[in-house]
């Protein structure tokens, strides 16, 4: 979970979310990402570096190319976090059950 802060910070940028959406369709190289985003290659590279640092994407070496793809574990960590939010809410609502019990109308 150490990377979660970095993951959410990385996700706060719309371009980086768009890059992830593109990578969800399949692997892509920097040059393949430059065109649809109408950005310079260094700008895309910077975004990819943030995403990689946050553990959201992984790069692989293929000759001179460095194709990027989504890191499956990053998505799993976010899902794991949602599970924790779920449990925190459950604690409150279980307590609410206790508050509601004596409020039931007399039968």
């Amino acid at each position: 979970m150490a990377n979660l802060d970095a993951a959410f910070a990385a996700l706060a940028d719309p371009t980086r979310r768009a890059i992830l959406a593109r990578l969800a369709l399949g692997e892509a190289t920097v040059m393949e990402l430059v065109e649809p985003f109408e950005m310079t290659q260094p700008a895309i590279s910077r975004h990819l570096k943030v995403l990689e640092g946050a553990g959201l994407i992984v790069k692989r070496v293929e000759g001179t190319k460095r194709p990027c793809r989504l890191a499956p574990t990053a998505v799993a960590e976010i899902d794991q976090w949602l599970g924790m939010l779920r449990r925190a809410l459950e604690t409150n609502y279980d307590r609410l059950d206790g508050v509601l019990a004596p409020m039931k109308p007399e039968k």
Partner: protein
Amino acid sequence: MSKLTLTTEGDRHVVVIRRFVAPPEAVYRAHTEPELLQKWLLGPDGWTMPVCISEARPGGKIRFEWSDGKGRGFYQTGEYLALEPFSRIVHIGRMHLPDPTPDNHVETTFAPDGTGTLMTLRMTLPDAGARAAMLATGMEHGMEDSYARLDRMS
């Protein structure tokens, strides 16, 4: 099986659904009356809500202050936008940790469900980044809660 479902919808929404074994009037009152809110809207065990302002009318203020009794705390401010006793509440909420989070627009509905109530809570954040940030800020409380439970189990 869990009584609560929490799902994300699109890139700006979080939807929580929960059933209660009390009629909608009781569940609605427990969501709007300060003396009832202070009994359950607390987060992790050990935390209390010493300040609870809930002016249940359109334009009415919301202010919840939480404390762990050891000097740590945070608070939420907001406004009620619409209220339909005992079926629907629309309000804006923002957490202060201490910097305010982006406005969270929340619609809560209470529908009769047999002898109980089906609650649907739908949060709408300004954008995907804000939702991610909101989920991220809540994390420490959720984690603390889980760890506390773990402590009790060991």
